[in-house]
């Protein structure tokens, strides 16, 4: 009953085409993972002696050889730059597997384009995963317009990042282990995106959490990295708890867990009812964990401890967008719960603004990009919150392009800085912007590409960012006017007021984004070089295997906007079809988007639209100019990082220390739980109360009674006389009283 056939499988236009090979998409990276895993583990395994308790000191000191199998953990000795024996094989297997997946995805996309109008998802059921009474969860994949877009992004950007990693991780002894994890990640991400029911999606959901744990803590011999990995996993796990509760609610009330079933039964739910709102809010709790929104975002900045391509792939392009995909995928639920929509939009707006402010004062180049990602994710949640699902996915796509480019660009910069420091054995922080400066002359190609990405993210017209961000702000503004969200109210505040506030936050965040991105560019590429005389000679362009993918990404982030050209743009510059992504995703999210805007597609009058676009462009340009005006890289001079930190005061210090949120979480949640469980629960209840009082207590009681008994038989006739007399008194007493 659970997983009815949405559309008769046989009659589906896609059946029989390459779409049948849907299952191969996640399996290919899985094969890559197994091969790389074996390549990393077999050389490192030296069987121990038959009797392990013999004195340790056998000659098994593990000098070299990184090794790993499945999720195992092994590391090289202090990342001594030595190339792993099988590095060459791995660098073929790893990316090759991704290229094949991408090719398969592209061919499936082509068949879908060719197959004309497809209104029903193409569901492939493989085997019954959990048959338990009337709950029968099947291992099934669902292919429809939304999932194919996500698959293309994942495999496309993934392939570019794999190629980049060949260069970036060349000298790392854990090379095969790195590629094994990366492949496993892509495999789980594909399972997440292709899953046809919430539990199958949940497998991918936690799987990617696991891979991010493994990759963040890749160089685990440093405690900070291992801690960052653990923190990421546990915070994600809190989010997954929310996802699980949502699944239970759905099953308990709707009896279905697959998307088709839930969509069909969600009609019975009363719109705006407390049940559907509860389900959506719990789902959103899952999203905040995975996509690093306000309450659970603290793990993302720490996740920068992992290698940079990992940050690019996982913490910019794919995993963190899983939350947006989840909301878009369950649009039929969110459109029924305006209050939930308002919350999502509000939290999205607040996160965008909050993260942008922190980004202003970060000195580590990757931390700036991390907070920028958190901020851009806030934008995506504004979009899907207000019901503009297409805008959300569009921004997701463009963000994947330019944010991956920014991260990989910073990766090349860090790589070059690291090489330079390595030559001169100087142990400065290769990621601190204060040590960079004036790299324009040494890395011209990367410099140009990074500027393209910066302009894109700032929202300068013709670049991808402008189209997607403007569409989100426009959608928020339009829905503030009239939509089911505007009518509803959140905590007493009318919906329209909330949405206007969200629009305002989005605008200010756009301004701040422009400022901190330009600040980053200024400190890294402009002004004179601050790395130091000796290293200067070693600064140069990164090898082509790294800059190649950058170029591709630059093209994508420059012309990404073409995906979904707004109407007003094509009248001016008839470049291509307007709103192609809208038409493409219409069968999946169209119906619920319309439900929010009372059936009419909320088009603002042309004049207001032009006004909004003008405001957005103005904001972007002023942001860049402010940055150029106020921040003089020369001011930095050659001050070392430690010195300049002291000089910040007041608001700057708070921003630099991320509003002390981490410390607050530790003090408020982590430490108290540890202390309570150690002092109160373990010592107090377990050892003290239960053991002390009942168990040992009863033993003490028994011994005490024994002792008292022995005193009575002392052999002294006198004591017996006393006993008798006392007895007599008692008996007489009874008489006198009786």
């Amino acid at each position, binding site marked *: 009953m659970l997983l009815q056939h949405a559309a008769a499988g046989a009659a589906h236009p896609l059946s029989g085409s390459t779409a049948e090979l849907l299952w191969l998409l996640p399996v290919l990276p899985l094969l890559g993972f197994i091969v790389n895993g074996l390549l990393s583990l077999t050389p490192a395994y030296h069987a121990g*002696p038959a009797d392990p308790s013999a004195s340790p000191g056998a000659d098994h000191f593990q000098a070299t050889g990184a090794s790993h199998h499945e999720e195992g953990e092994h590391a090289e000795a202090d990342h001594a730059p030595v190339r792993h024996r099988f590095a060459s094989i791995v660098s073929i297997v790893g990316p090759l597997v991704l290229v094949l997946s991408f090719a398969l995805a592209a061919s499936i996309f082509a068949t879908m384009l060719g197959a004309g109008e497809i209104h029903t998802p193409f569901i492939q059921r493989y085997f019954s995963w959990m*048959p338990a*009474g009337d709950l029968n969860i099947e291992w099934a994949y669902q292919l429809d317009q939304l999932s194919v877009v996500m698959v293309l992004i994942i495999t496309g950007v993934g392939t570019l990042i794999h190629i980049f990693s060949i260069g970036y991780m060349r000298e790392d002894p854990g090379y095969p282990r790195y590629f094994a994890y990366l492949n496993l990640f892509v495999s789980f991400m594909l399972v997440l995106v292709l899953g046809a029911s919430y539990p199958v999606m949940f497998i991918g959901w936690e799987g990617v959490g696991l891979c991010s744990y493994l990759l963040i803590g890749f160089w*685990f011999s440093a405690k900070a990295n291992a801690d960052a990995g653990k923190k990421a996993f546990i915070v994600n796990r809190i989010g997954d708890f929310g996802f699980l509760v949502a699944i239970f609610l759905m099953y308990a009330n709707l009896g279905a867990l697959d998307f088709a079933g839930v969509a069909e039964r969600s009609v019975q739910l009363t719109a705006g009812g407390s049940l559907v709102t509860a389900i959506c809010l719990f789902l959103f709790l899952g999203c905040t964990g995975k996509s690093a929104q306000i309450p659970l975002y603290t793990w993302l900045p720490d996740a920068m401890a992992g290698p940079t391509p990992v940050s690019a792939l996982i913490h910019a392009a794919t995993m963190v967008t899983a939350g947006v995909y989840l909301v878009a995928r369950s649009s039929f639920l969110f459109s029924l719960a305006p209050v939930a929509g308002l919350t999502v939009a509000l939290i999205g707006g607040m996160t965008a603004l909050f993260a942008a402010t922190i980004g202003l004062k970060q000195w580590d180049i990757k931390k700036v990009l991390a907070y920028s990602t958190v901020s851009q994710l806030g934008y995506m949640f504004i979009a899907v919150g207000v019901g503009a699902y297409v805008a959300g996915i569009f921004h997701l796509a463009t963000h994947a392009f330019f944010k991956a480019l920014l991260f990989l660009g910073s990766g090349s910069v860090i790589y070059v800085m690291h090489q330079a420091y390595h030559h001169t054995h100087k142990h400065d922080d290769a990621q601190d912007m204060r040590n960079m400066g004036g790299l324009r002359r040494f890395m011209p190609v990367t410099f140009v590409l990074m500027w393209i990405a910066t302009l894109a993210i700032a929202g300068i017209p013709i670049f991808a960012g402008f189209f997607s961000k403007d569409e989100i702000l426009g959608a928020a503004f339009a829905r503030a006017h009239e939509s089911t969200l505007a009518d509803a109210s959140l905590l007493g505040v009318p919906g329209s007021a909330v949405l206007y506030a969200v629009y305002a936050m989005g605008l200010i965040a756009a301004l701040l984004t422009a400022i901190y991105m330009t600040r980053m560019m200024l400190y890294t590429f402009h002004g004179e070089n601050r790395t130091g005389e000796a290293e200067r000679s070693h600064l140069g362009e990164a090898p082509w295997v790294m800059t190649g993918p950058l170029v591709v990404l630059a093209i994508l982030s420059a012309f990404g906007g073409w995906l979904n050209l707004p109407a007003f743009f094509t009248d001016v510059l008839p470049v291509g079809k307007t709103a192609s992504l809208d038409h493409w995703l219409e069968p999946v999210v169209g119906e619920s988007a319309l439900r929010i805007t009372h059936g009419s597609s909320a088009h603002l009058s042309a004049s207001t639209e032009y006004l909004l676009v003008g405001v957005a462009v103005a904001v972007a340009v002023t942001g860049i100019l402010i940055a150029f005006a106020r921040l003089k890289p020369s001011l930095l001079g050659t001050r070392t990082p430690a010195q300049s930190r002291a000089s910040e005061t007041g608001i700057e210090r708070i921003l630099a220390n991320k509003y002390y949120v981490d410390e607050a979480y530790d003090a408020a949640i982590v430490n108290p739980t540890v202390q309570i469980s150690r002092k109160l629960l373990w010592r107090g209840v377990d050892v003290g109360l239960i053991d002390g009082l009942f168990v040992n207590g009863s033993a003490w009681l028994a011994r005490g009674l024994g002792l008292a008994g022995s005193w009575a038989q002392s052999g002294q006739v006198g004591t017996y006389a006393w006993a008798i007399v006392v007895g007599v008194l008692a008996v007489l007493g009874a008489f006198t009283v009786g």
Partner: protein
Amino acid sequence: MREFLASLSYNNWILPALLILPLVGVAAIYLVPAPRHAGAATLDDFAGHGTARWITLVTFVAEFVLSLGLWWSFESGSAGWQAVVDRGWISEWGARFTVGIDGISLFMVLLTTLIMPLSVLGGWTSIRTKVRGYYALLLVLTTGMIGVFVALDLLLFYVMWEVMLVPMYFIIGIWGGERRIYASLKFFIYTMVGSLLMLVAILYLWTATGSSTFNYDQILAAASLGDRGITVLGTFLPASLLLFGAFFLAFAVKVPMFPFHTWLPDAHVEAPTAGSVILAAIMLKMGTYGFLRFAMPLFPDAAMTPWVRTTILVLAVIGIVYGALVAMVQPDFKKLIAYSSVSHLGFVMLGIFALTVQSVQGSLMVMINHGISTGALFLLVGMVYERRHTRMIDSYGGIARVMPMFAVFLTVVSLSSIGLPGTNGFIGEFLVLIGSFPSSPYLTIIAATGVIFAAAYLLWAIQRILFNPLDNPENKRLPDLNRRELLIMGVLTVLIVWLGVYPAPVLRRMETSANKFVETVERGASVRPAPRAVSLEGR
């Protein structure tokens, strides 16, 4: 395969065979002349242990191969007892030797026969003194455990319950760690107190059926104790409530449920590797099996009285959260795993008392998975204990770089223990939670937070062991796993991944029995089946 087994009339001799084979092993150990090494003062010291070790291993492997037949010969459709053997035993009292299995006990037997050879292999070189006695006790212990799972006669069940208890007392008491006497004594008295009450209850039941039979089915049929009961302090306590209380106490100690769990950490820490593996993997399941087989079907109305059910559910949830929280702060790795078992078993109890098909199947899955993953965890601790002779987490650090294979397996097993989807742990916990949500939403949500704490304490522990900087000189020269240890962990990892990805055959085999269990308890307790449509705030 099924016809081949039918041809051997497999079903009507397999269960007695499984019980008797270990005893044959014991005889073999003491009869087969061990080679007398020059240095060996007595047969029992290290030199003479070769034969005893191998005989035990061969017996256990034979037992496992034999029991595998059950997997195919078991028809998942029929709800009744299978492979039933019924012989006379003590005719005066009407106690008969009746053994049989159904969907629930099938997996417990298979788990036992699987874990025993692995635990012997695990403790292959760690037992040095009085070796023949040790292996003989292990064999008797197996008979006891399998007996408990297959007994359909209440007296036979009680006898096997005691047969299982005594060897474990000696194993912990003689071959244990420093505080072994205290630990074994505490373990014994804790279980003894509970089981004596149970004996009283069994005898009362025996009289209730006209002192004619101990047979489970007949007692089940006659279990309508009607209005019997005694008034205590003015309140009328029906007999079924008191009897349920007796059974509850005996099994709650074994589970262990929250207030009765303090014996577990001591027993686990002090037991030798094989001892703690068996204790965790199989003996903890006696308690929950007892609830599934005896406590609830025999006294459904008592079990389902609202205040009884809510108290047990609350205790289970406390167990989950309390176990996880306390596990987080344990300095000793074995104690950490012991408290994590309290947490996992809390899930099982939640599933059983939530009384929906999914939650009961979930509990059975958690029982199996906990056996595999916690057994594996204890084996791994044993392996590293043999190398470094310490169980303190802080004395390790960064050993992933010297013991890559150990690191791989510890991570895989930890992930299975915290219930990562794709491993076996997730299937059980997910089914328990999704099954018990309709009947008690708020408790299930609190129980679900247990999932977070599980991740917290285990990841923190394996980080302090595997990942942090490798600074302790002793850790630098630790040898990696040898072939034998690789074999054990390989088998367990395959099981973890197989049960995680494709648990359907296991779930189908237990479905009918879970259904039967839920129906008998609901019919008996005439309680409305768990409300279907419930949500936090209603529709």
